[in-house]
């Protein structure tokens, strides 16, 4: 990212250590979920292949692009605050939030669609995994947006600066985690067969 010496030599990831412990715990849950998906699929290959085709891959692509883009915007907001540019920092955060919102809207449409088709957690094991995984991730997007919004407010109030911006970095790290999880979820659930 920046060619700031102090960053390059750091022994710790950007942001608060506490948020990182949190991130690791969350990642662990998703990792277990992913592995469980893959191994359960092993027992029901036909069923998984059949119902995977009923998912809306285009919606998933839009959502993938939305999350990647928002992650990139968050990177820019961190860069901005490191240059002491509070206004830009807030703007990039708002841009990232709007991408998050796009994700939520698209995903909600998907859910509404499934709901109207009478699909739920008990329909079959594939839908159980699909709905569980995506909904758990959905909750994380909401959580991440709450964090980003809180940071945007504090940034607007001048809480952060070139010297002190751990808060921004913490929120950014959390948001990248939300993105990271989706980057695996998308191919695993929507594409790999």
């Amino acid at each position: 990212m920046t060619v700031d010496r102090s960053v390059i030599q750091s022994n710790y990831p950007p942001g608060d250590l506490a948020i990182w412990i949190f991130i690791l715990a969350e990642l662990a849950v998703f990792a277990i979920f992913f592995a469980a998906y893959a191994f359960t699929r092993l027992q029901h290959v036909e069923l998984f292949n059949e119902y995977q085709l009923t998912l809306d891959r285009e919606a998933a692509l839009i959502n993938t692009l939305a999350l990647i883009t928002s992650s990139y915007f968050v990177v820019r907001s961190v860069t901005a605050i490191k240059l002491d540019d509070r206004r830009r920092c807030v703007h990039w955060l708002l841009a990232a939030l709007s991408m998050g919102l796009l994700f939520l809207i698209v995903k909600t449409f998907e859910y509404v669609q499934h709901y109207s088709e009478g699909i739920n957690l008990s329909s079959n094991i594939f839908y159980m995994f699909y709905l569980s995984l995506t909904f758990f991730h959905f909750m994380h997007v909401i959580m991440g947006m709450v964090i980003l919004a809180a940071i945007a407010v504090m940034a607007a109030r001048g809480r952060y600066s070139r010297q002190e911006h751990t808060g921004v970095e913490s929120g950014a790290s959390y948001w990248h985690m939300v993105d990271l999880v989706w980057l695996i979820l998308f191919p695993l659930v929507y594409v790999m067969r």
Partner: protein
Amino acid sequence: MKQLSDYLGIRPCTLVYLLLIFFSLTTFLVGQMGFSGLGMSLLVLSLALIKGQLVGSYFMGLGSVCGLWRWPVFIWLFIPGILIGMAFTLSYQ
């Protein structure tokens, strides 16, 4: 004071961003064309793992961390990656 290096700093991330978009589109196309099979699955999985590592190293900034904290995302990708790869490989036997 703004330094030149701070401006240069965003470039790798922008490049990574474009790569991520490109890989995602590729993944999508694989799905769209109806490709399946072990080779395609593993290809898509590898793309996903590479994307994850890019996000970890560049967006999350772990690439410039020394010591233990450089590795969590890598390990997170590596272990599930192996498990998923294994499960898919087995599913074609």
